[in-house]
């Protein structure tokens, strides 16, 4: 029992950290990757999207800006689209790359509450982000198809800028 509680605590800490990193990495990717930026620009301006774990987090909440960038919001901001993992363990599987986002959808691990087309856009952004920031061998497990056109140089330079952006946001508390 005690061992189980420790495992749950560790998983929660891991998912909380990953949610923070992924949310903030999406913000950076919207600044450095044209594809992600185009996807966000296709959302209605001011559209608030949230990804969280039932029943009460962890999670992240972002707002789509007119220029295709994303802004960090507090988790109590009402969202237009909320993707909720049904259980912490399901979120852990996705963020530890044991299950891709698409597979998690297919396996009913999460519920999309909001406009489905925007959920699809968010999944594409997550796929692109994971392809950039993860080693290719790991990214291939996390996405349906690893982008053929993503050259090593581009991947490396974008990943560097995204990780720097994440660090900067965390340090500055933005």
């Amino acid at each position, binding site marked *: 029992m005690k061992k189980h509680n420790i495992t749950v605590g560790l998983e929660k800490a891991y998912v909380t950290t990953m949610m923070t990193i992924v949310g903030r990495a999406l913000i950076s990717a919207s600044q450095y990757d044209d594809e992600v930026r185009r996807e966000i620009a296709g959302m209605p301006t001011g559209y608030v999207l949230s990804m969280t774990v039932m029943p009460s987090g962890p999670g992240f909440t972002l707002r789509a800006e007119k220029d295709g960038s994303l802004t960090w919001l507090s988790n109590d901001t009402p969202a237009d689209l909320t993707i909720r993992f049904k259980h912490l363990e399901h979120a852990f599987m996705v963020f530890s790359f044991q299950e891709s986002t698409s597979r998690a*959808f297919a*396996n009913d691990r999460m519920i999309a509450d909001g406009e*489905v087309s925007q959920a699809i856009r968010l999944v594409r952004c997550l796929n692109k982000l994971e392809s950039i920031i993860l080693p290719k061998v790991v990214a291939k497990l996390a996405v349906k198809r690893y982008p053929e056109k993503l050259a090593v140089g581009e991947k490396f330079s974008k990943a560097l800028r995204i990780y720097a952006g994440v660090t900067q946001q965390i340090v500055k508390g933005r």
Partner: protein
Amino acid sequence: MAQSYYEFFCPVKMIAGHKALEHIPFELTAIGVSRPMIITDKGVRQVGLVDHVTNAFDGTDREVAAIFDDVPPDSSLKTVQAAAKAYRDQQCDAILAIGGGSVIDTAKGVNILVSEGGNDLTKYSGAHNLPKKLNPLFVVPTTAGTGSEATMVAVISDTEKETKLPFASYFLMPDAAILDPRMTLTLPPHITAMTAMDAMTHAVESYTCLSANPMSDAYASAAIRKISENLMDVMATPDNAQGRLELAQASTMAGAAFSNAMVGLVHSLGHALGAVCHLPHGLCMNLFLPYVLDYNKSVNGDKIADLLLPLAGADVYANTPQAQRADKAIAHLRQMRDELFERCNLPRTLKETGKVERSQIQQIAEKALDDGSIIYNPKEASLEDLIQVLEGAWE
């Protein structure tokens, strides 16, 4: 390889076969219903299909309390509200939907309002937003295609905002589906063909997409077999009651399959084409099916290969080497489409529809890219991929 997981849910009681309609009064009595309201459309009523149902109440101690026959081809919030008012005015306690997809979706919407109270359907839109079981809903399909009688979804148009509101909840599952051959016997050939290929697509995509599971596979492959074995016979002899019943059962089985296993790229493209060029859903399904299977083959060729057995039968399957089965299954579907084109001009290409301009391909592809079903497609599809599939389907 990912560890498998699936969910399957289908609590709908199937009441199927000869004189099935005459079971309705008993089934309603058994769950304490005394004042059912029929929801239908004028076309269904005019051809006498509602009479088949009301006649089934003759000689019983139950009667139909009200009939609402004003459902348009695209169900809307206003229609739902009007039907809910009729239900309340007549103090009804159950719904009997008689019709195709629009009627069934309308009935599901009405059931939300009359069970939950109020007139604002929009607050229940989305996934799992219904808090409890709804009032009894029985469905008598008059087409063999949508499968809505076995699904947990409904789509209702908000005509003022020009959007379509999706509803998904376990509580939207009807209590019973009544499949009686009399209800589809008079369907015209082109509607028979379109709806059957709609059901075929539900089954094929359920079997070949990401959420496929052993339960949905069983329903899907049985549905494919029934359509394959009976569609051309029914096209040749439309008054073939047994064949009609087989197609109706196939449609419901395909509905149960895709309600649990979802659908993929054929539907993404079909929804987009339907929205841009205002073409019937079943036509779009028939059109895109082989092109999408060809596209997906590199990822799920083994699953497509399985389809050869229910599509073409044991002899063809056994005589075809494993490596050729996927191609042969796709070829078989193409052959079915050719035959349907000869019999009722059901288009096989975008050009054959006569309603699509080649310049619209970009718009259709962009719309398909954001369609919800694309996430369940086994192979990732970019905008360029979709344009390529659409170009391939041009002529």
